[in-house]
């Protein structure tokens, strides 16, 4: 890749007078696996898989394995339709769609890991809400897609996107940071602004633990996707108003990763801490997997 840090990425964009999406596209072509048209074509196809991943459960709500989720996205969309929503159509759609994707995911429907399956709702949620509310074309969404890819690349290269390694701040954190940058670029912001939105987005989620109930990617994951989506929009809004965060992207990513490494393993996807270890979390686990008496007492005390 032509860039290995946020700083290099911004320098590259400024030197060449290009956007982050263009820098990512060129870098991907340079890898030598696909030419420009092929990359764009696959991105378009991937966008279509994403579109379906939120639309299907909105139209036909499905119950997740174990039954924790059941038509949450649909309920939110319904509220918007009835004109009762609180957050305005853009944010309400973003959270409704992102939660819908998580229903699809947990019911063994098809999603696009972005960057992971557990965080696969954030990007499509915001992207398609933006398309509807701001009239963006698919080509504009593809630019956001590429820009998000560049941020995700830095996340994967210099830190981690795995909840098991660095907590939810790595997983939903990555999706939210990727999406924040994409929104800025899709709204005409500069590369520096885009990465600043990512940096703020990371700082908002620092310390977030990975604690899925019963070890399943359902709860709190679905709600976290909604939060990741609204956080991305919030950070983009702040940056587009002219306020830049003071800590740069690379430093923020680095500190996120360090925090992740310091997290006890009970808070990194093992389902032994956080939401998973609450009495209710344990009850759900027993309901889904049958009770494991011997482990129980120990786990809930930890």
């Amino acid at each position, binding site marked *: 890749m032509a860039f290995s840090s946020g700083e290099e990425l911004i320098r590259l964009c400024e030197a060449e007078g290009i956007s982050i999406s263009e820098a990512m596209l060129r870098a991907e072509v340079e890898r030598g696996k696909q030419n420009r048209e092929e990359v764009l074509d696959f991105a378009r196809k991937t966008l279509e898989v994403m579109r379906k991943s939120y639309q299907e459960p909105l139209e036909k709500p499905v119950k997740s394995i174990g039954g924790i989720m059941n038509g949450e996205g649909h309920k939110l969309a319904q509220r918007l339709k009835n004109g009762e929503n609180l957050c305005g159509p853009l944010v309400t759609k973003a959270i409704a769609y992102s939660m819908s994707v998580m229903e699809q995911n947990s019911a063994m429907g098809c999603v696009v890991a972005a960057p992971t399956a557990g965080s696969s709702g954030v990007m499509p949620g915001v992207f398609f809400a933006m398309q509807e509310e701001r009239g963006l074309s698919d080509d504009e969404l593809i630019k956001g897609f590429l820009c998000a*890819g560049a941020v995700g690349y830095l996340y994967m290269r210099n830190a981690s996107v795995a909840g098991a390694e660095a907590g939810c701040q790595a997983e939903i954190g990555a999706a939210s940071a990727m999406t924040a940058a994409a929104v800025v670029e899709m709204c005409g912001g500069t590369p520096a602004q885009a990465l600043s939105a990512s940096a703020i987005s990371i700082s908002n989620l620092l310390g977030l633990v990975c604690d899925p109930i019963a070890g399943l990617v359902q709860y709190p994951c679905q709600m976290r996707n909604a939060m990741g989506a609204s956080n991305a929009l919030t950070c983009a809004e702040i940056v587009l108003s002219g306020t830049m965060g003071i800590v740069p992207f690379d430093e923020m990513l680095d500190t996120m990763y360090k925090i992740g490494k310091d997290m006890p393993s009970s808070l990194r996807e093992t389902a032994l801490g956080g939401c998973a270890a609450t009495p209710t979390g344990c009850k759900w686990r027993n309901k889904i997997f049958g009770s494991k008496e011997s482990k129980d007492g120990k786990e809930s005390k930890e």
Partner: protein
Amino acid sequence: MPDIGLFDVIGPWMVGPSSSHTAGACRMASTALKIFGKEPEEVKFTLYGSFAETYRGHGSDKALLGGVMGFDTFDIRIRDSFELAEKRGLKYRFIEDHETKTAHPNTVRIELIADGGESRLVTTAVSIGGGKIKIIRLDEVDVNFTGEFPTLILKHCNVPGVISYFTGILSDYSVNISSMRCYAEPDGKTSYSIIESEQPIGSEIIKDIRSNKLILNSILIQ
């Protein structure tokens, strides 16, 4: 530095819910199928570590079974794997092993059987996250490859000159080897060589290599 591309970041397309426990499970099994090279009549999955604990909730069982039927990670037929396997007459079993300690928590052993028991292959694979996998054991031999790139596995006599023989043929055909590892069977008589390339490896090359009696078997994954 690992080579990370755009679609490694945003991708794969996959049937949920978990990239490691669903998409990874599917890829472990579909890679085992590719190595086996024929349709199995029977399959036994032994699940270790976190797979043994949580496979039902993640649909890992359906994804594994779908994988040995050749389904890709995003094939929604994975949801109906059990019914589809029964329709094909594919016998399957899932064995939970909570005792054995494996080096990696996401380990599955896949035993494929065909020809009424005449053909058999045991593959052990690990799901390393984000839908990525590694094959770590083939029958009795410890190995280490992903199956993502064109991969040629040769079983050959463990005698001097064999390796230079087949690498010579590959170079004659201008196949660039991007990685190669050799593993001797415990008996010391036979070895496995695993060759990864960035380019596809043609069947005529395999034929050439196989013409030597010291080459006992070959498997091409691409």
